[in-house]
C-alpha cells in the first residue's frame, strides 16, 4: 500500500519516564563500544589490577600463603596502598577516555546530527548528561566500584577496628574517583564538541594531559616556582587524592589551590559545551 494511503495514527502506547531518557544515548553508545574487540579486551585488562590487589589483601590472612613468604615482604594495607591503586586505575581510566571520548560529540557535529536530537523532546542538558553517562558508567566500573569492593574485602578480613580507623579511605575512593570521572568526561566532551574532527579531538585530549603538563613543568623550572603544577592535571588530582587519604603530596601545591584549579577547568569545559552543543551553527559572513 502506498504510504499516503495509510491513515495517520498517533502512538498511544506507554512512554518511558522522562528523567531516564538521556540513558538512550548511553545505550546506543555502548552498542558501538562493545562491538570493538580492542575495547572489550582493554576493559578486561583494567580489571586485572583490582584482582591483583584483592590477592595482595588476602595474602596476609591466609595461613598457607603466610608460610611461604616472610612477613617482612608483605605489603601493609594502608591509605598509601589505596593511593597507588587510585593512580593506576586513574591512568587506565584516562586511556579509556582518550579512546571513547573524542567520538562522542564530534561525530554528531560532523554529521549535523544535533538538529535531529533537538527536534525531539530532548534538551541540551539531557544530551550532555547522556553523553557523559557513557563515560561515567564505564569509568565507574573500573575505578570506584572495584575500589570500594577492595575496601569492603579488607574491612571484612581485618575487622571493624580497621574499618572505623580507615573510613576516610572509602570516602576518598568514592568522592576522589567521582571527581576524576567528572573531570575526565567533561574534558573529553568539551574537546569532542570543540573540534568536529574525532582525530583532532583525541589529540587535543592527549595534548591537554601531556603538553599542558609539560608547560607546567617548564614554568616550574624556568621561574623556579611550584605554581606550574596547578595546570598539571595529574599533580592536581594527586594533591586532592592525597589530602583525602590524609597523606602528603609531592606536588608542592596546597589542596585548596588544587580544588580551585579543578573547578576552573570544569567551568571552562562547561562553558565550551554550552557554546558548541546547539541545534545550529551561525556562520559569520
Amino acid at each position, binding site marked *: 500500500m502506498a504510504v499516503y494511503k495509510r491513515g495517520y495514527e498517533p502512538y498511544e502506547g506507554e512512554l518511558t519516564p522522562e528523567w531516564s531518557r538521556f540513558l538512550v544515548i548511553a545505550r546506543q553508545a555502548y552498542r558501538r563500544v562493545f562491538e570493538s574487540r580492542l575495547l572489550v579486551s582493554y576493559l578486561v585488562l583494567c580489571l586485572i589490577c583490582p584482582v591483583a590487589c584483592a590477592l595482595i589483601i588476602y595474602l596476609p590472612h591466609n595461613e598457607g600463603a603466610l608460610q611461604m613468604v616472610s612477613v617482612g615482604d608483605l605489603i601493609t594495607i594502608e591509605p598509601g596502598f589505596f593511593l597507588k591503586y587510585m593512580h593506576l586505575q586513574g591512568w587506565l581510566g584516562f586511556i579509556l577516555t582518550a579512546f571513547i571520548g573524542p567520538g562522542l560529540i564530534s561525530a554528531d557535529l560532523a554529521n549535523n546530527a544535533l538538529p535531529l536530537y533537538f527536534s525531539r523532546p530532548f534538551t541540551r542538558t539531557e544530551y550532555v548528561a547522556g553523553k557523559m553517562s557513557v563515560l561515567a558508567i564505564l569509568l565507574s566500573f573500573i575505578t570506584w566500584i572495584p575500589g570500594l569492593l577492595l575496601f569492603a574485602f579488607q574491612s571484612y578480613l581485618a575487622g571493624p577496628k580497621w574499618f572505623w580507623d580507615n573510613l576516610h579511605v572509602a570516602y576518598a575512593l568514592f568522592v576522589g574517583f567521582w571527581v576524576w570521572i567528572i573531570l575526565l568526561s567533561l574534558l573529553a566532551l568539551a574537546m569532542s564538541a570543540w573540534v568536529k574532527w574525532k*582525530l583532532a579531538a583525541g*589529540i587535543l585530549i592527549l595534548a591537554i594531559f601531556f603538553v599542558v603538563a*609539560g*608547560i607546567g613543568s617548564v614554568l616550574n623550572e*624556568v*621561574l*623556579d616556582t611550584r605554581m606550574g603544577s596547578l595546570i598539571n592535571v595529574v599533580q592536581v588530582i594527586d594533591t586532592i587524592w592525597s589530602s583525602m587519604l590524609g597523606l602528603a603530596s609531592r606536588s608542592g601545591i596546597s589542596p585548596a589551590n588544587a580544588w580551585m584549579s579543578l573547578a576552573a577547568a570544569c567551568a571552562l569545559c562547561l562553558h565550551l559545551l554550552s557554546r558548541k552543543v546547539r541545534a545550529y551553527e551561525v556562520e559569520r559572513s
Partner: protein
Amino acid sequence: MKTSLPWKLWARQVMAILRIELAKNFKRKRAIPVYVLAFLPFLLWQTHSLVHIRGWRTCSGSEDLMVYAGVFQVFVLRLAIFFSAVAIFMNLFRGKIVEKTLHYYFLAPVRREVLVVGKYLSGVAMMVIVFGAGTALSYLTAVNHLKLTASRAVVPAAMADLPVYVGVTALACLGYGAVFLVTGLLFRNPIVPAVAILSWESIIVFLPAVLKKFSVIFYLESLCPVKVPFHGPGLLFTITAEPTPAYLSVPGLILLTLALLALAALRIRKMEISYGTE
C-alpha cells in the same frame, strides 16, 4: 618525446601551492596553539630575566643553560614540535579527507607528487619559521640574561650554540613533518599510530642503539649542544647510546625524511577519493 622532466614547471607549481597554503597555514585559527607553544619558552625566559632585574629573586645563572637545554629537549622537541607537527601535517591530507575537500586539490592540473611536495614544504616552512623564531628568541633572552649574572663569562661560548639550536629545531620540523604526513596518508584513523609514535619516541631512550636509529628524537638529541643528564623517575634515562656525530645524523635525518616523502608520493598516486564514514 619527453627527454627531460619539466622541473621548471614543477618548481613553479610548488611555489604556487606554497603561496596559497602558507598564507592559509598562518592564518588558520587552529594555528594559534602552535604559536603559543612556539613562543611560550620565550615568554617564560623573558619573565625569568624580568624577575631577576626587578630583584624579586636572585639567580647566579650557573644553571640557566642546563635548564634551557632540558626545556628544549623535553618540552620543545618532544612535546611542542611533536604535537604541532601532528596538528599541522595530519591536517594536510587527512584533514581534507575528513572535510571532504581533498578532491578540490586533485582536480587541479598538478601532479599529485608535486602536490605532496608543495603541501609538505608549506607545513615545514610554517613550522620552521615559527619554531625557529621561538627558539632563537628564547635562547637569546636566556643568554642575554646571563650577562647580568655572575656567569657572564660563558656568554660568548653560549652564543656559538644559537645556530645549533635553531638548526636542530628546523630538522625536528622536517623530520616530524614527514612522519605525520605519511601517517595521515596511510591510516584511516591515525590516532592509534600517532599514540604509538609518541610512545615509541618516548621509550626509545631505553632501547638498544640499533633501534634508536629509527626514531627522529635520537638524531635530534645527539645534535643538541648541551647534554642533559635526566633526573627524576628514570635513572634508566642515563643509558644513552654513543651520540652519532653530526656528519652522520644530519644526513641520516634527511634520508629518513626523503624516504618518508617518497612513501607519501607513492601512496597518493594511487589514492582514490572515497569519503567514507570517518
